[in-house]
């Protein structure tokens, strides 16, 4: 009985596919595909002295109000959401010679040089009954207006689309040239 080398039996790998299928299904179920994206905003710090109102010249404000029926009012006039972007765009474009347009301020910005920035502030007010959908739609229109202007500045100074700018300094320069000034009113007690 001279046995020669004992062969190690091969491990059966046919169930490997099943095992990996199982893993695959596990991952499919437990994970989500959605990438989170949204409109980023910065909240203002809490007001320390609520009685002190900051006075801003009227020409520097674009009043946007949304009532509880989701109707829009811009500077005292009813307005449709489709017109909002153009109105905002018109408002934030620096116009140094227009008496009614917001004031301009010449600022020295790196990589751009002297640039006329607009001192206008978009003031957004909404009712407690306004729907979130409408609020986001308005925020979106406002963002659109600012992004358009940024795009324009980016094209004239860097010959590149704003979204294609990779240099952080350039992005910062454009952001400084077009500051997104959206002020949200302190919630008021409805009397």
């Amino acid at each position, binding site marked *: 009985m001279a046995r020669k080398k004992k062969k190690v039996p091969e491990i059966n790998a046919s169930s490997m596919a099943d095992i990996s299928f199982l893993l695959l299904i596990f*991952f499919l179920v437990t994970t989500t595909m959605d990438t989170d994206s*949204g409109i980023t905003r910065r909240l203002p710090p809490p007001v320390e002295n609520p009685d002190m109102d900051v006075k801003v010249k009227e020409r520097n404000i674009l009043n946007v109000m949304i009532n509880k029926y989701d109707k829009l009012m811009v500077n005292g006039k009813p307005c449709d959401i489709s017109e909002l972007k153009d109105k905002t765009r018109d408002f934030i474009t620096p116009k140094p010679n227009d008496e009614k347009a917001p004031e301009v301020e010449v600022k020295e910005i790196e990589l751009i040089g002297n640039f006329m920035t607009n001192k206008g502030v978009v003031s957004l007010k909404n009712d407690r009954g306004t729907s*979130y959908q409408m609020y986001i739609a308005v925020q979106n229109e406002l963002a659109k207006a600012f992004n358009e202007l940024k795009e324009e500045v980016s094209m004239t100074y860097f010959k590149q689309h704003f979204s294609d700018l990779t240099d952080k300094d350039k992005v910062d320069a454009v952001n400084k040239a077009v500051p997104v000034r959206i002020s949200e009113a302190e919630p008021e007690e409805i009397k």
Partner: protein
Amino acid sequence: MAKFRKGGSKEVPAISTGSMPDIIFMLIFFFMVTTSMRETTLKVKMKLPAATEVQKLEKKSLVSFIYIGPPTNAKLYGTEARIQLNDQYARIEDVIPFIEQERLDRAEADRPLLTTSLKIDESVRMGLVTDVKQELRKCGAFRINYSVRKGE
């Protein structure tokens, strides 16, 4: 000389499944890389409003989520919009402790960069949203992100 095979049944050779595990593993890795773990079970209905001007959230680990929407189980909890923090319904007073806890969970250097993502159903009224925003202002969580769906 060429040999001719004997006539009769010509069997189709079986397709080798030997590489099947490799293919599946490749799929697994794809899904592991592109997706993220679901961390909370949604207890509120969530249909995000649509918007076009969206920015991507940069660092996922530095984001804390606040969900607001009508409860999924309307029979038990009614239809009024509720706030959900982590895995449970919360009241408006719970927002500040929640943010404090989220801060404590992060490394100290990252704390100022913490962003709060507001995932809010489109049917929610702004009153509740404003209340939450006021709470966030009180505790210094100024970086917020309104979560939206991309599209018109």
